């Protein structure tokens, strides 16, 4: 087993480096532990990306190749050492070697605390999504009064401390082994090749920085885009850009265009961010897919796009979590867009609450929903399964309630009157409700 160790100090003298040196020597039967220097790492700056520089590449490669990492942090002002934080910032910027890497935290201090608060803040930093390390839970190795803790040969003097450190190291080795086994089981599925950072420009990609807040304006200037009164010829029709906007912005759904390069290039902007079912800001247009989806959603996004791109499906529908039965049912639909040669050209995503439509249908047709006792409740992916029994229910109901509905189309007065008259002749099954609804339905029509 191969570990690397980093002490969070760039001073010439460091007790935390001394602690790591001791660990590397004492536990060499357990693992090959190499100490990495952070002496030459420059101050992190997002303006001056030095990810490719030797000191950072050296750390990134060594960490990526190791089975586990041991970090020893001093404590400054109740938090982790700036030098340690600085290294982690570089290693969570454009490279992410800590991702899914098992990490053990240790620390030493002059006085009683043994870097206790620094260890907590280091843990918090390592567990943030940009870093994504797998920090070993529960055990804390806090070495206090470090000035007197080592003998002249650099060995820890206190036997109980050595014994405890041994148990922590043994547990860490086990932690590394378990995680390794877990990670190896994940097969390399083809959907993982979807590039959410939009790094594969297509013939419609515009050469404007995707993260520019005014991507639309910059792109419009660059392409001399049609606008306002300019006419656009469509399949099938002819509209001005203004007309096209009026048209798209009055569709009863939020529509988004994610192109074949996984770049978010359009949405019909008729609502403010806070009023949207799938909130978007105008300045997000132009962003790569990765910028508009949180980390936890990205694998799922890749799967959906891949499913559409590779023609496994043309349409994928999904209810959002937190929908309320018979109150609100927000659906996301993803439909593949393909050109005349059947090449994938992006996804048309539309979002809407389908409950008002269902509720309106029920009201107009005088029906109610009833649970299907034979349907399996499936709250998560239930769109297709729960839709089926609902459809069956309406078919069943129509047999008894169809008459007034059908009549409603052919004439309001007749429809309203018919069941009332019929009631005497015994069409009681249809009931009074459809009558009332047929009247109101007819008057609206």
């Amino acid at each position, binding site marked *: 087993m191969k570990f690397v160790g980093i002490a969070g*100090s760039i001073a010439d003298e460091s007790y935390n480096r001394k602690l790591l040196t001791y660990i590397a020597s004492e536990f060499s039967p357990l693992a090959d532990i190499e100490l990495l220097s952070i002496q030459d790492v420059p101050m992190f700056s*997002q303006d001056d990306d030095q990810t490719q520089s030797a000191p950072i590449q050296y750390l990134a490669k060594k960490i990526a190749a190791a089975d586990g990492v041991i970090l020893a942090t001093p404590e400054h002002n109740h938090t982790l050492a700036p030098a340690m934080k*600085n290294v982690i*910032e570089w290693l*969570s910027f454009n490279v992410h070697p800590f991702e899914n890497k098992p990490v053990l935290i240790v620390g030493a201090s002059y006085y009683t605390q043994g870097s206790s608060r620094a260890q907590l803040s280091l843990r918090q930093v390592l567990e943030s999504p940009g870093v994504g390390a797998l920090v070993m839970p529960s055990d804390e190795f806090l070495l206090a009064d470090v000035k007197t803790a080592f003998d002249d040969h650099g060995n820890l003097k206190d036997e109980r401390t050595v014994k405890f450190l041994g148990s922590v190291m043994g547990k860490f080795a086990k932690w590394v082994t378990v995680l390794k086994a877990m990670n190896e089981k994940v097969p390399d599925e083809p959907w993982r090749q979807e590039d959410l950072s939009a790094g594969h420009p297509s013939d419609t990609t515009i050469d404007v920085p995707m993260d520019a807040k005014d991507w639309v304006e910059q792109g419009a200037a660059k392409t001399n885009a049609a606008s306002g009164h300019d006419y656009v010829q469509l399949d099938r029709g002819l509209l001005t850009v203004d007309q096209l906007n009026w048209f798209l912005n009055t569709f009863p759904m939020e529509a988004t265009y994610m192109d074949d390069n996984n770049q978010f290039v359009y949405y019909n902007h008729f609502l403010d961010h806070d009023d949207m079912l799938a909130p978007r800001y105008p300045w997000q247009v132009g962003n790569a897919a990765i910028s508009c989806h949180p980390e936890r959603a990205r694998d799922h996004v890749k799967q959906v796009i891949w499913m559409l791109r590779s023609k496994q499906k043309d349409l994928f529908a999904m209810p959002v979590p937190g929908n309320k039965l018979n109150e609100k049912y927000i659906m996301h639909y993803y439909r593949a867009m393909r050109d005349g040669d059947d090449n994938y050209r992006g996804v048309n995503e539309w979002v809407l609450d389908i409950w008002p439509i269902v509720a309106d249908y029920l009201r107009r047709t005088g029906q109610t929903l009833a649970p299907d006792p034979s349907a399996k409740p499936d709250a998560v992916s239930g769109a297709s399964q729960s839709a089926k029994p609902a459809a069956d229910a309406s078919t069943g109901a129509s047999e008894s309630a169809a008459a007034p509905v059908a009549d409603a189309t052919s004439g309001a007065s007749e429809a309203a009157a018919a069941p009332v008259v019929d009631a005497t002749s015994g069409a009681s099954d249809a009931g009074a409700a459809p009558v009332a609804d047929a009247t109101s339905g007819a008057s609206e029509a």
Partner: protein
Amino acid sequence: MLHYIGIAGTNSAHSTNRQLIQFVARHYAQDATVELVELGDLPLFYKTADHSVPAAATALAAKIEVADGVIIATPEYDHSVPAVLSSALAWLSYHIHPFAGKPVLIMGASYGSLGTSRAQAQLRQILESPELDARIMPSAEFMVGHSLAAFDDNGDLKDLTLVAQLDALMTNFAIFADVNRQLTAKMTRTADWQDSNH
């Protein structure tokens, strides 16, 4: 007229936290001067054998010493304060103590919706350590989310609710600085015993 030092916890040329400090300076110019200082000249902190600190740290310390308070706007990297800020604070508490007893107001701006809430909590913890011994404005937080869209072309905060919140904070900060002056006159500095320990 009150005089504050404004620190944006960044070394980036384009920072919405610097924009925030600049807005504060301009918006409250009638009540206080806010001098924006930069951290870019400070090297990454390390313990020097002779306990010396870089000239840039001494110069910054001198400015903080004479100010009525310090306003810090922190970005958030990896759920915490950027290294460039924690490093600066480490220099500013290494055998010098410009923050001791100094009123500090914490705020922050971020691209996402959270507005640096976690970095602010950590900054509070750092400033409360005995070596820094700052007087953080109690129960105050000011978080600007979605900061790329938060300012208009003049650099003014667009959200009037946020501005009203900031108005109250700045008024209270002036009162806090005044009360703190009376308080510190009567208190022993924590850092005095801390120095003898190093």
